[in-house]
C-alpha cells in the first residue's frame, strides 16, 4: 500500500463513528487526524453527516436553555428549594 492509498484508506463508517463518538482517536495521533480531514474534504456524504451531527449538538444546546421551558421560573424554584432545605438543615 503506498502513501496515497494509506491516506485515502479512511472509510466512511470509521469517519462517522469518529464524528458521532466525539472522542479523540485512541491511537494514530496527527496522522489519523490528517486522514480524517482528508476524508472530510473528499467525501460529500461524510461532510453532510458531519454537519448533521454538529447541528444536532448545537440544537441540543439551544433547546436545553431553561428559557426554552417557559413555565420554569428559576427564582421561584430556588426560593422553594432554599426554604425546604433551610427547614430541614438549619
Amino acid at each position, binding site marked *: 500500500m503506498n502513501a496515497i492509498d494509506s491516506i485515502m484508506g479512511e472509510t466512511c463508517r470509521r469517519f462517522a463513528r469518529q464524528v458521532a463518538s466525539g472522542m479523540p482517536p485512541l491511537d494514530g495521533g496527527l496522522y489519523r487526524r490528517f486522514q480524517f480531514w482528508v476524508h472530510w474534504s473528499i467525501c460529500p456524504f461524510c461532510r*453532510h453527516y458531519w454537519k448533521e451531527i454538529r447541528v444536532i449538538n448545537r440544537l441540543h444546546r*439551544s433547546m436545553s436553555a*431553561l428559557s426554552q421551558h417557559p413555565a420554569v421560573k428559576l427564582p421561584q*424554584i430556588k426560593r422553594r428549594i432554599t426554604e425546604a432545605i433551610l427547614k430541614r438543615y*438549619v
Partner: protein
Amino acid sequence: MTPAAAETKKRPSSEEVAELIERYTANLMRAAFSLNFNENEAEELVQATFCAYLDGGSRFEQRSRLLTYLFGILYNKARETRRLRDRNPSLDAMDADFEGHFDSEAHWDEPSMAVMTEVEKKAQSRAIGQMLKDCLEGLSSLLGMAFTLKEVERVPASQICAILNVTPSHLGVTLFRARNKLRECLAAKGAVIV
C-alpha cells in the same frame, strides 16, 4: 475530619445553603430536564440532590468540581427513581440501523444517504426543535445524561466518565449511540437537519 468539623458540615449556614442553591440549581435543572423529568419532578430531583449532598457532604473529597459531584448524585437519584422505566432495548437495532447506511467497503451506501436527504427536505426546519425534544425522550438516562453533560454542560470527558461510572471507550460508544439515535429519529420525523 474532627467531630466538630463534621457537625459543622451537617449544619450549613443559611448563607451557604443559599449560595449552593443559587449557584447550581440551573445546571441541575437542565440535567434533570435532559433526563425527561417534568418541571415538578425536576425540582424534586434537584432538591433531593442538594439534600443528599448536605447529608453526606463530608464524602465530597474535592478531587473534582462540586458541580461534577452534584451531577453524579443527580444521575444516581434519577436512576433510582426511574429504574423500572429506564430500559435500553434497542441498542442492537440502533447499531444495525447505523451499519445499514454503509456498503460492503464501509462507504456510504448512496441510495440510503439520498433517501435520508430527500426525507429531510420535506420538513420545516423550525419544527426541528420540538422534534428533537420528542427524540430526546427516546434516549435512556445514560445516553441523555452523557450527551447533555458533553454538549450542554461542557463537562470534560474524564469527569463524565466519573459521573456515569463508565470507561472512556464506553463513553465514546454512548455518545455515538445518543447522536445517531437522535439523527435517525429526526430523519424518521422528516426533519431537515442541514
